[in-house]
């Protein structure tokens, strides 16, 4: 078992190194560092300012081979080596747009992001699983059909519409919560997060509920459920002790992979509700030609994705004795 996970982590590391190479090609070879520098300091800046900016942002070295250096320096004193070193040690440097340290921006953005994504994730999961279990229990009745139609309806509306409608209805007409904005003060922060979380839960509800319902129905049809009934289990016990316990395995694989992404925030929700989180930071970086920030965010995304895959495998093995015990 331990050997399996070590190998799994080894593959993860190799994948990550590959991702870094791809990022290098994208951000240093396809996008020319000279272009980035010229855009940042302006076309008519003096050559010293231009050179200084490149030095400050670590764009002042040759790409792959440093012909000016000797020994190992020919390969280590290059943009490629620098790129790997910085990313692997989480030394992300400064924003190309406003010179602020990226790690500080990350720290500042993490809390507002988690403030949205964690409640959204937990509430979405609990609501969808509970509703799915409920309709699976009432399968083939009108309750089941009504909920299914509701799911289809909520799915066929675009996510953007929920944001706009939510802001209009709850924020403007009912005035329960602010339309957008953020205040980290713990006394009022929930007021700013409530609406985006609500909108997020609603827009994910239909697809998730249908997905979990399918899983539950598949389990309900299995032979061991009939065995459980034959020994005298009641409906509720059958659903929770037998169906839910078995359905947990496919549900886990779907859910655990999402957990790492809670850290990267919610792009759409954050930028529309004016929450200064990491999702908003990413959108800002795209709009402002902030390549160093963007590169950091893409890298972190890949890192979290790989972590999610490994976590999924581990939780899968823990939940399913057939995997755990081989």
């Amino acid at each position, binding site marked *: 078992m331990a050997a399996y996970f070590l190998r799994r982590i080894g593959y993860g590391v190799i994948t990550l190194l590959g991702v870094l190479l791809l990022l290098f090609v994208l951000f240093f070879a396809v996008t020319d560092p000279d272009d980035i520098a010229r855009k940042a300091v302006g076309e008519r800046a003096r050559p010293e300012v231009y050179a200084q900016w490149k030095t400050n942002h670590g764009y002042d070295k040759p790409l792959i081979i440093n012909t000016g250096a000797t020994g190992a320096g020919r390969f280590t004193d290059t943009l490629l080596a620098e790129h790997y070193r910085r990313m692997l040690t989480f030394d992300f440097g400064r924003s190309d747009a406003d010179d602020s340290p990226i790690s500080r921006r990350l720290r500042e953005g993490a809390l507002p992001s988690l403030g949205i994504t964690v409640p959204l994730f937990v509430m979405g999961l609990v609501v969808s699983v509970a509703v799915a279990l409920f309709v699976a229990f009432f399968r083939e009745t009108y309750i089941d059909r009504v909920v299914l139609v509701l799911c289809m309806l909520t799915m066929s509306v675009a996510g953007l519409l929920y944001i706009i409608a939510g802001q209009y209805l709850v924020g403007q007409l009912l005035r329960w919560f602010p339309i957008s904005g953020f205040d980290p003060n713990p006394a009022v922060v929930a007021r700013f997060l409530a609406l985006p979380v609500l909108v997020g839960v609603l827009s994910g509800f239909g697809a998730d509920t249908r997905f979990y319902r399918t899983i539950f129905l598949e389990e309900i049809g299995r032979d061991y459920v009939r065995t459980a009934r*034959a020994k005298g289990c009641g409906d509720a016990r059958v659903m929770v002790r037998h169906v839910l316990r078995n359905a947990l395995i496919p549900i886990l694989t779907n859910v655990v992979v999402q957990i790492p992404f809670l850290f990267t925030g919610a792009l759409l929700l954050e930028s529309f509700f004016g929450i200064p989180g990491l999702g908003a930071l990413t959108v800002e970086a795209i709009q402002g030609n902030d390549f160093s920030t963007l590169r950091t965010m893409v890298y972190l995304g890949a890192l979290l994705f790989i972590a999610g895959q490994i976590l999924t495998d581990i939780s899968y093995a823990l939940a399913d004795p057939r995997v755990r015990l081989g």
Partner: protein
Amino acid sequence: MSAPLLAVENLSISFPGEAGPVRVVDRVSLSIARGETLALVGESGSGKSMTALAMMRLVPKPGRIQPGAHIAFEGRDLLSLSVPDMRAVRGAGIGMIFQEPMTSLNPVTTVGDQVLEAIELHAKLSRAQARSHVIELFGLVGIPDAKHRFGAYPHQLSGGLKQRVMIAMAMAMRPRLLIADEPTTALDATIRAQILELLRDLSAKTETAVLLITHDFGVVNEVADRVAVMYAGEIVEEGSRGELLGHPRHPYTQGLLRSIPKAEARGHRLEEIKGSVPRPGHWPTGCRFHPRCPHAFAPCPGTEPQRTTVSATQAACCHLLDRSVEP
């Protein structure tokens, strides 16, 4: 004569079809005495499993037991019991085991806990007491190293051992009736014989009545006291084992018996019943067996044969036996 342990009367089961409900079991009546083993035989699709599931009120949705049926178990009508009362019958009064030991156990729970649950549901025992009862049961059904096997998961056991776990589960509360739906079909020959022997010994030792569903007349010959033959949703013949195997009166029973491979007939082609079982909703009029029957004559396609008693214990539904019909 004392009242039978179980008496099924006029049981019909239907599933919704495109053109209204379709019957899969049609006016079945049968009874089982205390301690008796009744074998229910018939080709695939004749409605044996549905009949058995109806006795547990476990007919799968959207199937329905038609009004007018009665299933009396120990004098109580199961079909009019409240849901909690019916739950108390399942597992305690009637135990059930199924054909597929591979899929009939919960894959993520240890087999010990699954048998334990069958006890916990019906008896107020401490966990330790229930646990030692389970280990005792495992020994009883011939699971070696019972203490150690308590914590095993189903995938760690062979098919034969899994079926023994199922038997332990079904027998945990000493039910008066055990329903075994093709308990040996999925097992290979040597294991099949062992499981059959276990069932026979257990039912004799505990005086449990058994409803044994099977395709296999070898199994019937070994364990049954009485036999009922089902065809297209109906019971077409019933009688004691000796009567049915020695003097079958219904052409369908005769055909089934002729299609058993016999040792002395090795090398000969088996005499199969021609054609196949009609699907529910497509049952022929009159006698449902007449299109496949070698003895079919004038009344068969038009008139439904009545049940005719041949002896105190044997009866069959066939025009050949009915003296009121002119040949």
